[in-house]
């Protein structure tokens, strides 16, 4: 048997097949797929940080580096005050922030004063004070005088407001290495017609220093901090 299809018949046949396929869902791939369902979840969390800086109370502060150290320096200007006023007090501001479950503590290392410097001859002391205003030449170090502090506890915190503390260097001018008195004793002996003769003479002078504030070396106070967990 041979089939002969008219053009009109061919169009009708094609239309019928397409309609049937569309009625069954259209997408043949989907119609044969196994079932699938999906749920999702996501999330992210931030990391807390720490900051540590020191400087003059009224000036800009110097941030600690990756070595967790920050330094404060003083020298000629403060030495000039020490020479002229006989005493000087140098306040230092320390700002600390530590977030999350970490506290912050630090130690203070005083400068090593050269013995032939003005500060080195003035027995400077370094101690913590309650405020910048409390740092005066009349201030005295506490006893004992710990050179450590824990400004931030390990209690959980999200604060970005620093805890501020103050330290103070106090120096009172002492005797400088090239300063003092000079005394000259002279004795003369001879022979006179009356026999041996001798005379003594003595004079003294006060010797003032030749040291100048401008020549004072820079002194560095080092603050080293670390952070710690609760209970540590």
């Amino acid at each position, binding site marked *: 048997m041979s089939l002969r299809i008219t053009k009109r018949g061919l169009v009708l*046949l094609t239309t019928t097949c397409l309609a*049937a396929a569309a009625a069954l869902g259209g997408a043949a791939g989907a119609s044969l797929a196994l*079932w*699938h369902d999906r*749920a999702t979840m996501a999330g992210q*969390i*931030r*990391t807390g940080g*720490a900051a540590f800086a020191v400087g003059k109370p009224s000036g800009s502060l110097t941030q600690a580096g990756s070595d967790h150290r920050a330094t404060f320096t003083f020298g000629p200007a403060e030495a000039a005050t020490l020479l002229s006023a006989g005493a000087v007090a140098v306040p230092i501001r320390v700002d600390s922030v530590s977030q999350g479950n*970490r506290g912050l503590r630090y130690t203070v290392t005083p400068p090593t004063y050269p013995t032939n410097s003005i500060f080195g001859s003035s027995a400077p002391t370094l101690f913590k004070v309650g405020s910048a205003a409390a740092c005066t030449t009349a201030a005295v170090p506490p006893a004992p005088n710990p050179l450590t502090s824990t400004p931030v506890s390990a209690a959980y915190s999200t604060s970005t407001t620093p805890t501020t503390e103050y330290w103070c260097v106090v120096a009172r001018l002492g005797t400088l290495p090239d300063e003092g008195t000079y005394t000259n004793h002279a004795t003369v002996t001879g022979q006179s017609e009356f026999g041996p003769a001798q005379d003594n003479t003595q004079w003294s002078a006060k010797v003032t220093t030749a040291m100048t504030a401008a020549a004072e070396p820079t002194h560095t106070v080092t603050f080293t901090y670390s952070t710690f967990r609760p209970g540590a």
Partner: protein
Amino acid sequence: MTARFKVLLAVATVLVATLAGIGTNAAWRKPASAPLGTVTAGTLDITAVGPTRWTETSPDVSAAPHDIDPASFLATAGDRLQVSQDFTTALEGENLRARLRVSWGGAASLPAGVSATYVVNRAGSQVTGTTPLGAAAEVGDLGPGTQTWTVLITVSFASNRADRDLSAPVELSSLGEVLVDLDQVRQGTGFGS
């Protein structure tokens, strides 16, 4: 319409109907009437239950474990956190088996010194090994019924990781997009292979 064309049309109609009968139509979810009774479609469904829960479990924090808000919590070195999300699966149907698979759509991004692993729990019991975040894990041969699942992620911040400088850009630990897929399988219990 000629007789021959009618024959051809009939053949084509039967062919289309036969092809349509092969396999299962994924979209069938409604009862379908039939002359000899009613065929009810099965169910394969997974649904997240409740919000994702973040818990601090740091052993040295006296308040732990306690829930935290990831939008405001600031993690630091030594912290340990757990992230959990519950899901329910429902399977209903004859010869219906499924597989639960955890994978990642968007990659996790953890900074140096932060690590994370996860496990999958079924009704509170661990059913996968501890798996690094980003690696897939699956549980196979799920049968009919409703079950509760938990994807439990543990995030650890190494105790010796460096303090983040507060002036540095914000640092995020991102879990990525976790995909939990429930797929019908034609294997396992009740199947030949």
